[in-house]
């Protein structure tokens, strides 16, 4: 195998060649070195040199200096740039000086934490410094926990364990909290949205406990490249931070290709499906013996692609095992086996969700193929970075889907290769999130009157309610926990709604195959749905909505199911609004949703072969939203059908491009349109968050409306379709009746109305330069 041969084969393949619209070779980069900061323990410097690290890269040098001087920071550098050294060196140095010193490492997942342990052990063994590291997570045996609590210099854990295991039991961690020097937060950019809002609250609680025990730790964060690493770090930690982003690490050559599947119906703007195109590319790479990872956004597509890629192989169990799926919902043991298979090379192709995106050790693969834009540039570079950690040339291919987001990205390379415009957003004061953590905080330490302000915006009102129902007890200006419950136990940091549906294969023997969040369950494991797990199809015999259990059995059918969700929306409160040629606003809304029916769709041909009703109760949600009305000039003299069509098209394009600014999963944001909205009295498109209480997307979109509308306009304007397609405003309802020109007119008028604001046209984005973003 060589990448060059594989590249040649891909370029030569007539069935593929047309789709490659951009090839870029990112040249290798030379290392730039700095010096070891003065005052580092000589044993440590000796150990680093013995390990071949004569001098630090410039960013490492800066980061170590900041840490030693007690300045909080976020280090922003790509994968494989030696970021772990940025925090391991100051931590080991602190322990070398004072063996009582402690550090806490937070990684977003357990698997990442395990990998860090190896790294650190090498360094301390070499340095001959007595430094004990422990991971503390759900897998830590009870008898080991005592040792971790008292003897561990470095405790490696995840936010969930900190939240539910460590903070509520801080009296058992006195040594850690009394002498905590550093808090290391890796993969900071993953702490956004609801998860980030929770983690910000967990960190508030952590700092509160530190104050109680008299320590004042310094934060060392690391993040992939995003637009606002400093702001995100500040919101998470509640402190001003230094931003270290001058990467001095060398880099091997990488070839990045953007692939836009060919149009199969130019009139309707329909392109060949991303799944089919990715399958073709992955098969080609496999023939060239290129070990590849294929990333796809949905669990469903993981299964579909795994199944397709296996089907293309000679039918025997040995070859089937060389293609594996990997996603959340697989049991840990299954996952560890797949990771090992990748390292050993036994598995040639793995199809994964972003569960494999972060630093889980699977070794360096040859190629990374992205079946669809993963939603954020930061994610994209991390997924591409899974290929080529060695010195050889690595290959990365982004395959675009039909949607406007992908089409925008693949046709505007400057968006991915230029400076990041996507921001990590959190809302630590989300009332639901804040209320949950306020309870945890009171549980952990009685709350003093002067702490209220630091605990979030609505603390006094929340406490009043909690005192009313006896959850807390107030006396002498202090608030005490007065309830039997252990509040952290009931709060998941990962889900806005912690209720999961358990999926049970009825067997025999019956066994749990996975879990799924409640809202997603409405459309994926409803009665008669086809649920796919590791390339196997299951029929959902019954969804028990009160017990939250779905009973499934294996089947072998030639279709999958796709469910429809009906949505209604009401504005509860407008927080900010502006009226020009059109109205825009943001605020709190109530959304009512109901799964109504599902379609049966044939595999491969994707034709609709039947449908059924879904009988589930209506769910509702209070959350944040951003809305715009159609401009007045467009409404006058139009028929209702035209207005309906234009509004629908506007909503489609906005909801699809909004994630470009939000770093959110497309599923975190939805659109609803009302031809005559009771709130605005005009045709209105609402973009609402799927998270109860919201994490601030509405506000951000309101603030960035000019940029959002500018991007939307360029998407519609530049789309080659004649009258609307899935890549812009959605396909026309009937041939020839496109609303594309109406949407374009609306967006142009809206952009003009906002002309005094920031222009986010592609030219501006392009001028940001073509230095590659983080990877």
């Amino acid at each position, binding site marked *: 195998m060589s990448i060059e041969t594989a590249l040649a084969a891909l370029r030569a393949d007539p069935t593929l060649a047309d789709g490659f619209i951009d090839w870029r070779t990112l040249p290798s980069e030379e290392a730039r070195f700095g010096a070891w900061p003065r005052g580092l323990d000589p044993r440590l410097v000796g150990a680093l040199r013995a390990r071949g690290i004569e001098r630090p890269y410039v960013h490492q040098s800066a980061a170590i200096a900041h840490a030693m001087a007690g300045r909080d920071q976020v280090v922003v550098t790509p994968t494989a740039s030696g970021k772990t050294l940025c925090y391991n060196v100051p931590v080991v140095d602190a322990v070398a000086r004072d063996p009582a010193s402690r550090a806490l490492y937070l990684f977003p997942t357990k698997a990442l934490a395990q990998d860090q342990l190896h790294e650190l052990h090498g360094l301390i063994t070499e340095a001959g410094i007595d430094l004990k590291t422990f991971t503390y997570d759900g897998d830590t045996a009870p008898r080991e926990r005592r040792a971790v609590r008292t003897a561990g210099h470095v405790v490696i854990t995840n936010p969930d364990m900190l939240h539910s295991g460590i903070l*509520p*039991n*801080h*009296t*058992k961690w*006195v040594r850690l909290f009394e002498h905590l020097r550093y808090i290391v937060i890796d993969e900071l950019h993953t702490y956004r949205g609801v998860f980030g809002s929770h983690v910000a609250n967990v960190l508030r609680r952590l700092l509160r406990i530190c104050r109680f025990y008299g320590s004042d730790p310094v934060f060392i964060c690391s993040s992939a490249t995003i637009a606002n690493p400093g702001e995100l770090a500040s919101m998470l930690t509640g402190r001003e931070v230094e931003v270290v982003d001058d990467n001095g690490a060398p880099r091997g050559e990488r070839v990045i290709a953007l692939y836009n599947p060919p149009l199969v119906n130019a009139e309707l703007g329909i392109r060949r499906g991303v799944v089919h195109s990715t399958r073709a590319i992955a098969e080609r790479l496999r023939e060239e013996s290129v070990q590849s990872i294929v990333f796809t956004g949905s669990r469903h597509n993981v299964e579909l692609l795994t199944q397709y890629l296996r089907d293309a192989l000679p039918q025997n169990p040995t070859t089937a095992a060389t293609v594996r799926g990997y996603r959340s919902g697989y049991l840990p043991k299954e996952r560890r086996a797949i990771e090992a298979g990748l390292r050993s090379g036994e598995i040639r192709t793995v199809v994964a969700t972003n569960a494999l995106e972060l630093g889980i050790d699977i070794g360096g693969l040859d190629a990374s193929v992205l079946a669809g834009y993963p939603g954020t540039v930061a994610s994209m570079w991390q997924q591409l970075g899974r290929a080529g950690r060695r010195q050889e040339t690595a290959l990365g291919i982004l395959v675009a889907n039909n949607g406007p987001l992908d089409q925008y990205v693949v046709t505007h390379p400057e968006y991915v290769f230029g400076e990041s415009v996507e921001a990590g957003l959190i809302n630590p004061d989300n*009332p*639901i999130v804040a*209320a*949950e953590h306020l309870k945890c905080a*009171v*549980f*952990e*330490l*009685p709350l003093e009157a002067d702490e209220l302000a630091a605990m979030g915006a*609505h603390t006094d*009102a*929340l406490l009043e*309610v*909690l005192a009313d*129902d*006896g*959850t807390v*007890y107030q*006396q*002498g200006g*202090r608030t*005490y*926990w*007065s*309830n*039997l*419950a*252990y*509040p*952290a*136990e*009931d709060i998941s940091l990962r889900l806005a709604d*912690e*209720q999961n549906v358990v999926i049970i294969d009825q067997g025999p023997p019956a066994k749990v195959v996975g879990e799924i969040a409640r809202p997603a369950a409405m459309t994926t494991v409803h009665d008669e749905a086809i649920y796919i797990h590791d390339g196997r199809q299951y029929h959902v015999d019954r969804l028990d909505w009160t017990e939250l259990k779905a009973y499934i059995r294996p089947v072998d059918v030639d279709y999958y199911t796709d469910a429809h969700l009906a949505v209604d929306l009401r504005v*509860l*409160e407008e927080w900010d609004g502006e009226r020009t040629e059109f109205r825009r606003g943001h605020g709190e809304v109530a959304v009512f949703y109901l799964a109504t029916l599902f379609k049966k769709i044939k595999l491969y041909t994707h034709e609709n072969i039947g449908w059924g009703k879904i009988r589930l109760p209506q769910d509702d949600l*209070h959350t944040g939203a951003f809305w715009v009305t159609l401009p007045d000039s467009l409404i006058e003299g139009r028929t209702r059908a035209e207005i309906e069509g234009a509004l629908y098209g506007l909503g489609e394009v906005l909801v699809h491009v909004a994630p470009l600014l939000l770093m959110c999963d497309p599923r975190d944001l939805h659109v609803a349109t009302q031809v005559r909205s009771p709130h605005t009295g005009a045709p209105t498109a609402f973009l609402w968050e799927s998270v109860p*209480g919201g994490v601030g997307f509405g506000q951000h979109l309101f603030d960035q409306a000019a940029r959002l509308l500018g991007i939307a306009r360029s998407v519609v304007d530049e789309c080659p379709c004649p009258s609307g397609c899935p890549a812009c405003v959605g396909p026309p309802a009937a041939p020839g009746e496109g609303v594309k020109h109406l949407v374009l007119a609306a967006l142009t008028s809206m952009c003009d109305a906002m002309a005094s604001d920031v222009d986010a046209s592609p030219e501006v984005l392009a001028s940001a330069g073509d230095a590659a973003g983080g990877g």
Partner: protein
Amino acid sequence: MLRAETRERLRLLIREIETRPRAAAPASMEREPEAVPARPWEGGDDLEVPQRGLREAVRRETDEGTFTYRELRYDLDYAVGGQSLSELEALAGAIGVLAPDAGAEGAELESLLFLDIETTGLGGAGAIAFLVATGRVEGGAFVLRQYLAESPAEEGALLDALIADTEVERGEPVLATYNGRAFDAPMLDARATMHRRRAGFESLRHVDLLMPARAVYRGWLASCRLATIESEVMGLTRPSADVDGAEVPAWYFRYLRTGDMRCIEPIASHNAIDVVSLAALAGRLGALVGGRRAPEGGESLGLARLLGAAADLESSKRWLERAAAELGPGDARREALMRLGLHYRRAGRHDLAEPLWWELVSTPGLWSLHAHEELAKYYEHRCHDFARASDVVEQALALATRAEPRFAHARHIEAFRYRLARLTSRQKRASGTGSD
């Protein structure tokens, strides 16, 4: 200031959070006590409620603040149910057997600190210790001290006084508790940490009576909870107004809100009874070990277990012989026979063990398989009677293969088959030699 609607929405939000189903908390913990008992357990007709405090208690001051405190004295002939505290005299001599690892042998009776705490939860920083009872033999009486935090704000003062009174910081007393190793001692130390103090209950020498009580009463009583032992063994009937341990936190929270003495008195009495009956149980176990009290029912077997675990094999054997002689058919008798058989075998008295094993052979399940195995070994290795050994093994195999799977594990069958094959070949060799 928040607007009224926002406030109301927050209120609704929190209600919504609060009413979500919780993971498997026992129903009794979620509920408030349904009815307040008409009166506390010792009478007290003329109580005015609500009224903070505890009867016969005083407010006591420390540097950390005030809390409620009372002392109750019991003569040493005071009887808990049918169990007199006077047997405590025997306790000191028995500590080596009751808690072999405590390092407390030879401790004086007066140095023992009986202790039990009541908390608002099972763990985590949010569960406070609001009531502590200690008991100590002083000047010929059993002195019970209770420390009550009338609110969470008084916990610091409570701990302050407790630490001072018990001299825990000097490592003085020997702690005597029921499951206190796992719960009471670490809990008190954690609470002290919450008030930035060091207590050191966990480092005290500690006689945790749960261990010996389990050794003695396991298999005989339905459970080894202190309440079960009290009623089944010591004949104590708790007052009707007594509160169930699991409901204590809910009662205390109610007391916090209402100040109603009728909510706190039952908890205080419950806590006091716990410590007195703990002392009574300690006395009983001490007297049993010291030979000052004759075992009743299954206690003879239990005592043998306890002494066996403390490596007093001679006494252990004596109690097993007693149990074998006294106990009627049942698992206790079978266990006694089996243990006694082992004693005899180790002492080389296979002749005494043989009839015990034969008795066990006809009992159900594992006992029987065990006895078959012992007999087969005995006939094969001691008596060299291979034919008889083979008979026993064949009988065992027949039993094992038709028995319920949970008794006859594959490995038993395997072991018997292996033994049988060896016996057959030994038999052949023996008969071959004989015919020459």
